[in-house]
């Protein structure tokens, strides 16, 4: 059979046309996540564990800064070694770092730390680069004990219990110390590289209980 160029092209185009016709109803199933725990934990993590890491770093810097605060250049150099270019302002008794939060020095030597000046939590330096905090707010209670050891921020104790904005009760308990690399020049890992947490959600249809184990930046969620 002798085929002209036109016939060959028409056949190819009509093939595509009929293929389009046959596929004219394209189905694409979009499945919501099978296990919502991962998404739910991610939202809780930034408000608790990650916040405690950042608060510790702010306190650790400001503790060291107190020794050299009369030397403005040395103080700024120290701040940049922790937070890079993210230091918004630094004075004798106040600090603001973009992405970390704000810190103020109380008369009793403790720190008032928070994501912003709207809500500040007291954090007490107890020596040897160790910090404790025990807060009771309108929504619940948050307590932790953290330290800086060998270039790592370690949460040695942690207990969190609060009611989220949508009415879900959130509880976190430490199974083993949770740690991540200390911030350096404004860089810090988001997730811990060691430790484990127990997580419980209750109410509003979100009843769940599981553990989260951290290993080298990965998270492993397990249910009993």
């Amino acid at each position, binding site marked *: 059979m002798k085929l002209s160029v036109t016939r060959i092209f028409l056949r190819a185009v009509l093939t*595509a046309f009929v293929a389009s016709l046959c596929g004219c109803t394209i189905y694409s199933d979009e*499945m919501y996540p099978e296990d919502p725990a991962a998404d739910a934990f991610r939202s809780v993590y930034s408000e608790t564990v990650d916040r405690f890491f950042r608060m510790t770093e702010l306190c650790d810097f400001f503790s060291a800064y107190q020794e050299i605060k009369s030397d403005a250049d040395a103080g700024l150099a120290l701040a940049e070694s922790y937070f890079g270019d993210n230091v918004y302002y630094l004075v004798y008794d106040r600090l603001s770092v973009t992405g970390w939060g704000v810190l103020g020095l109380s008369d009793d030597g403790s720190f008032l730390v928070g994501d912003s000046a709207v809500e500040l939590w007291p954090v007490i330096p107890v020596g040897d680069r160790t910090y404790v905090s025990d807060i009771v707010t309108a929504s619940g209670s948050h307590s932790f004990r953290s330290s800086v050891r060998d270039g790592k921020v370690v949460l040695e104790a942690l207990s969190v219990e609060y009611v989220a904005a949508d009415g879900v009760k959130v509880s976190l308990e430490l199974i083993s110390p949770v740690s991540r690399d200390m911030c350096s020049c404004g860089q810090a890992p988001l997730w811990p590289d060691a430790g484990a947490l127990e997580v419980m959600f209750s109410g509003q249809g*979100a009843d769940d209980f599981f553990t989260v184990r951290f290993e080298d930046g990965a998270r492993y969620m397990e249910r009993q």
Partner: protein
Amino acid sequence: MAVFLAGSFPSRASERPEGRGGDFSFRRYEISVGGGVYPGRAAFGYNTYSGYLFYPVGIGNIYEASRYYEKERTSGSWTAAFTFNFTKVMALGASLSYEGGWSGLYRRSDGTKVTGCADNYISPMLTLRVSWLNRPLVRMYSSVGGGVAVNLTREATLEEGRRLPVESDVTFSFQVTPIGISVGRKLFGFAEAGIGHQYVGGFFGIGYRFN
């Protein structure tokens, strides 16, 4: 499809198309139909997202959303066009396109449809085409078109037996085709590659030229 292809053009071994290798034959008018892969409105996103049921995002809604799944489908994009050739190079076309999209939210436990939404677009468009290669059999061109799209969106909350009224909206519509090729004389097939509200990717069709 194989049967369709085999039977479309019966062979006539002795046929020799008239004017083969001859001069370019200018015909004033063209009509054509075609379908796009991937449909343009689907590529840019329909207004059928049911996830709004799970806003604001919170732990409770994260768990609630996990109890449902969403299924989406599209009719594809289909266009009928009439083109007026001013010259061998310049042409102006008027086209009418249709594309429809549907999505439904289903309860994972029993497959019950909770809500459904439909998005239908009727798009008239004017297209300016420049043919930069004109041979007796093969033409290559580029085009740009603009118009409007009348969007009819309908949403129904089936569990409550409530059907919301049809909402209509008129939006801007465009299509840019950097390269297209047609093969044939009076009856021709064409294939295009472009981006816009008619299609994103390829467009295939057939047409007929006449005076």
